[in-house]
């Protein structure tokens, strides 16, 4: 169990793409309040989600950033490949640099004045869970007090190629999303939206269920959420075994993009009446990933915010 991993704020953006992906520059500028120069749509996407999460706060400079994506800046990487392989010219320097995953971490850190840990970390099974797990590790064992954890996954035109590239059928709705969470471990932080009670991966479903039983979650106040990779048969097995009748089907109306989990957490924290979300994903090799998000008890009083809030002057 991860002690004291408090979710202080959440910010989210997602959009189905039916033609050309929408321009994001203006939205990124409006959301963050700073000019967005020499960056592509991927970084803009990351900044929009992060900006909505930070929402005008001034974060401690030591805040750590953990960022994830299934495929990173596809648009820039495709552009650079075309420059090299079709046009036979070298990439533009900034295009080359933006193909590196952590260039988005740099822009997020610069935008919010952060100098703490900065990690681009991913996993094919569960990218956001991987980032949350390392944030939890650092908050428990590496003196990280505040962390900004997020994911971004983009869509590229033409959509037929994009669908083929990400391995979905021709009629699957596709889109892009950016989902961020501000974590604060200090007891003096503002009232949390929720807690990350557990985030772990397991070699098989049996071990996951054993761990889940140990958490002693009240099934009446809990919803079970299905990750985007979990096969139907295993999902039904989990529903039957856990006795959690209510399914939190956040993914059924979402266009496909990697790391949809972030939307599930955001929706649970902001729109669900349930107390606990048990989110399970799994891959074809039999591994499974568990993420348990819990809300504070109803009626819990909010402690004085410790993070200064630029909007209210606090």
């Amino acid at each position, binding site marked *: 169990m991860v002690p004291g991993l408090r979710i202080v704020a959440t910010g989210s953006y997602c959009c189905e793409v039916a033609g050309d992906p929408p321009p994001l520059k203006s939205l990124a500028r409006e959301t963050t309040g700073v000019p967005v120069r020499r960056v592509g749509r991927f970084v803009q996407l990351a900044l929009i989600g992060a900006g909505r999460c930070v929402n005008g706060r001034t974060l401690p400079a030591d805040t750590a*950033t953990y960022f994830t*994506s*299934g*495929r*990173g800046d*596809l648009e820039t*990487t*495709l552009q*650079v*490949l*075309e420059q*090299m*392989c*079709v046009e*036979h*010219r*070298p*990439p*533009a*320097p*900034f295009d*080359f*640099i933006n*193909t*590196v*995953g*952590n*260039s988005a*971490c*740099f822009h997020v*850190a*610069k935008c919010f004045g*952060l*100098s*703490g*840990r*900065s*990690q*681009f*970390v*991913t*996993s*094919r*099974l569960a*990218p956001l869970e*991987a980032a949350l797990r*390392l944030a939890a*590790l*650092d908050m428990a*064992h*590496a*003196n990280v007090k505040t962390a900004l954890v997020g994911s971004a996954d983009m869509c590229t035109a033409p959509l037929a190629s994009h669908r*083929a*590239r990400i391995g979905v059928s021709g009629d699957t709705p596709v889109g892009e999303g950016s989902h961020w969470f501000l974590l604060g471990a200090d007891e003096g932080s503002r009232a949390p939206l929720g807690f990350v009670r557990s985030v772990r*991966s397991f*070699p098989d479903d049996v071990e996951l269920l054993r761990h889940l039983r140990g958490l002693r979650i009240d099934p009446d106040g809990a919803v079970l959420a299905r990750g985007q990779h979990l096969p139907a048969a295993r999902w039904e097995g989990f529903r039957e075994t856990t006795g959690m009748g209510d399914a939190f089907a956040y993914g059924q109306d979402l266009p496909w993009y*990697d790391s949809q989990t972030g939307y599930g957490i955001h929706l649970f924290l902001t729109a669900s009446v349930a107390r606990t979300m048990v989110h399970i994903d799994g891959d074809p*090799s*039999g*591994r499974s990933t568990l993420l348990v998000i819990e809300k504070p008890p109803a009626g819990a009083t909010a402690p004085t915010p410790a993070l200064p809030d630029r909007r209210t002057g606090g």
Partner: protein
Amino acid sequence: MNRSSFLGAGIATNLGTGMADNLAGLHEPLRPPSSLERRLDGRDLRIPCKPLRGFPVARPAVRLLRVIEVVVDEALREAGLRPSEQRRMALCVGSSSFDICVSEELYREELARGGDVLPLRSSSFGNLAESIRSRFGLQGEDYTFNTACTASANGLGYAARLIHAGFVDHALVLGVELVNDLTALGFHALGLLSASDMKPFDPARDGLVLGEACSALVLGRGEDGRFSWRGDANMCDTTSMVAAHTDGSTVSAVIERALSDARLVPSAITAVKAHGTATPLNDEAEAAGLLRAFEAVPPVCALKPFIGHTLGACGLTELILFYRAIESGFLIATPTIGADPSASGVVLNQTERPITRGNFVLNSFGFGGNNTSVVISRN
């Protein structure tokens, strides 16, 4: 508290394939780089490179998986884990280019054939980790780091911390970087490549030489006498996307934080492995940072003159060469390179010093302001 010790290592670089060849290569005169030849914008380009020795350029998909298999096999053999331990261990992969060499080849083949073309046919950052998991039957948690030239150093730090915290018993860290056009032409476009060879902290330094490497390290709880991870720090320097602050403030900050994490004072450090990219600004920043962090700078060595800049693989690859050299009884030297203190204030170790134990700082810095210092010890 669980010590994260180094139980087994495997390596392939320009010095050779396998630990014995690599350690022997550290005693030999430096080899000049070879060249990648490309034609762009109607001009012939020669990009300096130190490719893997023993793995001739072949189909990238075959070459990439083959070198990973050989290197991981070497590390696992030495670690001698039981099958059940291996199955459950965590996997941390660090690279800046992953399998982009494979995507480039597929794209060129499709262009040459004509008809339907789909660049980046397989685009997930997690591809390599999945290949390794599948090949070696790993069912533990996996993490893939893409923080440019700190990627495998960061992977090592998290692997060690996962063990230190008791989250896992063992972890396999892999750093890999093979030649590809995106990287080669990107560095060419940035104007960071040397016209000769890498000479970190030297008045004649003029840039870097790209290197290929694949390295693997198995970590677990080990007994005294082994090298172990003692602490680390990672910070984001937003001065510039491509270089640390030249006043050394951000470099010294990450070193000081790593020392604090390791609960050591600067005077307890026996030697430093510099990042040493041989570019004017980065060496200036690192030298200034070392001078700020240490009242008396300990002996400093640099590995890139031997193997080139292996980018995302450099953190782990250089750590393995460094600690195995110390276990063999010597601190690595680069005679004549970085010998002049007037260039940066930092002098590289010029003769192989007999050192077998101590506390060591290893630096890695990457694009995106990603600065990492790792502290390792052998007592």
